[in-house]
């Protein structure tokens, strides 16, 4: 446990210094990674125009999450795919993304981390995924 925390702290320290170390090239890589991540998450929704209805409602409810990058980062974190914002630690397959989403959604429901969007009781990750389609 302690070892894991120490590794996380080290990663955080490393990641926070990354822009300085890499300069514009590093920012570009991070942006590309973030864009890729957003795209991969959006691809999970096959009817984005419908998800947008729920997503719009979620963004209005949580304006602090309205920006796509923020949503993707939070969602990526929800799915347990990265400890460090902006750091791409793996390239999960679509199947792995679904599995991670399923696990995440059930866990969020289990601990009461849900939101109500147009009456629907949704896991927060579900709502974020819809909001990402905006």
């Amino acid at each position, binding site marked *: 446990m302690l070892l894991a925390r120490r590794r996380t702290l080290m990663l955080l320290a490393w990641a926070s210094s990354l822009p300085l170390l890499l300069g514009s090239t590093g920012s570009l890589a991070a942006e590309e990674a973030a864009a890729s991540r957003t795209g991969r998450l959006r691809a*999970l*929704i*096959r*009817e984005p125009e*419908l*998800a947008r*209805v*729920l997503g719009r409602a979620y963004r209005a409810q949580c304006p602090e999450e309205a920006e796509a990058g923020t949503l993707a980062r939070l969602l990526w974190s929800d799915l347990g795919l990265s400890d460090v914002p902006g750091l791409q630690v793996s390239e999960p397959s*679509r*199947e792995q993304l*679904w*599995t991670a*989403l*399923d696990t995440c*959604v*059930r866990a969020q*429901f*289990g601990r*009461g981390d*849900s939101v*109500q969007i*147009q*009456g*629907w*009781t*949704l*896991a927060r990750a579900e709502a974020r*995924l819809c909001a990402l389609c905006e």
Partner: protein
Amino acid sequence: MFIDARTLPQNYMIEADVCIIGGGAAGITLARELSDGRRKVVVLESGGFEYDVGTQALYAGEVIGGAYIPLEADRLRFLGGSTNHWQGSCRPFDALDLADWPFGFEALERYYRRASEICQLGRYTFELQDWTVSEALPLALPKDSRLKNGLFVYSPPTRFGTVYRHDLETAADLTVYLFANVVQIDSNREASTVTGLQVACLDGKRFRARARHYVLATGGIENARLLLNSNHVQSGGLGNDNDLVGRYFMDHANVHGAATILADASRPEMNFYNHHFVHGHIIEGYFSASDALRREEHLPPFAIGIRPMGTVTQAAVGNLTLPAPLRRLLSERAANALSFDLLRIQDRLQVPVEWVYDRMWRTPPGMYFTEYGCGPPPDPQSRVTLGDATDALGMRESRLDWRLPADFERTMYRAHELLGQELGRSGLGRLRIESPATTGQNPMASLSQGSHHMGTTRMHTDPRSGVVDADARIHGIENLFVAGSSVFPSYACDDPTFTIVALALRLSDHLKSLS
């Protein structure tokens, strides 16, 4: 033996050891138990063997405050009382339900066991595993779940006036007087002893009854009404020193369709929370709050059942002529993968968009609505008083002011939110709250009562907090007892009949001990 009271001589005097006023579930149970040949028992029943318009009209009263079923329509006034329209739902109160009672579940359980026989439930068990069949399974809830499963076992239902008529006819030293309406309870000048009853028939006949012990068993509204009308000695009514008679009136509040559920119709869990047959009995499962959550959030006892609205079939998809036409937007499915499925449902509820998980939809999805039943906490302002009008016998009618707590809707929606989370956690389905704010629907328009009248002569060891003591004897009166749900100081989400019978058995044991 049955006697039509209208055939008695005017001013006749009935004498007995125990006089029971009312021939419903409580009165009949008491009469059967007490008529063991060791004492003379009489029952004074207002009606006959069947529904009678004139007798039923004696129930008329005034409703003020919240909407309520007309008082002459939501109970029945003939032998068997309201068991004549009882649906039969039974479940014993649990320890938390009885937290405000002067005794706990342990003191009541043996009476519940006997009540189970009387209500024709067969074996006494309310354990889930004893009423589970493969086609209807309770949702497996983790130990830390905020919800718990429960079930109601249904009586056939037992029509007490029919099923036990022969017993009443043949029991030793038992006489049931029909068409005999008690209009006044007389007491001594100190109002410490009941000295007799004034009884009237609708044809004008008047007579009296005298006994060593009296039991008031006329129902949750009438018990209070009769005490309040018996005001010759105490102007506020008999047993009403502390202005408690008629207060704390309680009834179950039911709301239909507070939420819509989309779920896998093939899952056996979707059958458990609706009425179904097991071992020859109707069973109805429900969700309620865990004990820990009820304490933590001060939620009222509630039960949520799930009812099918219909199943979405492929044929229905896209057929705009159906009541709930659906257009399936995705046909592609990913085996063993979680994929979103979005449905556009232009149903009568004007829902723009709904979505569920595709993997729940190996078979056509089902649409369901919830059935919410709640037992709001007792409120002294929710009460029965006397109105200005009088009935055909000269008694002042009841005036009912039924009140719900201000947070009723909040707790109802909180209960549904918890259910939505549990359905999501288990992968069973998704739940949508119906409200003016979310879907434009107002489920509160469907608010109805259970016709379960409780609390008006509540039980408490302290006379400042209750009308009757732990033995169901009215505080300060040595020989007047009360049977029925009017003694409930609090209640659960259950029909009261099963507990009424258990309490009547308990009271009969006490009365036997006095003689």
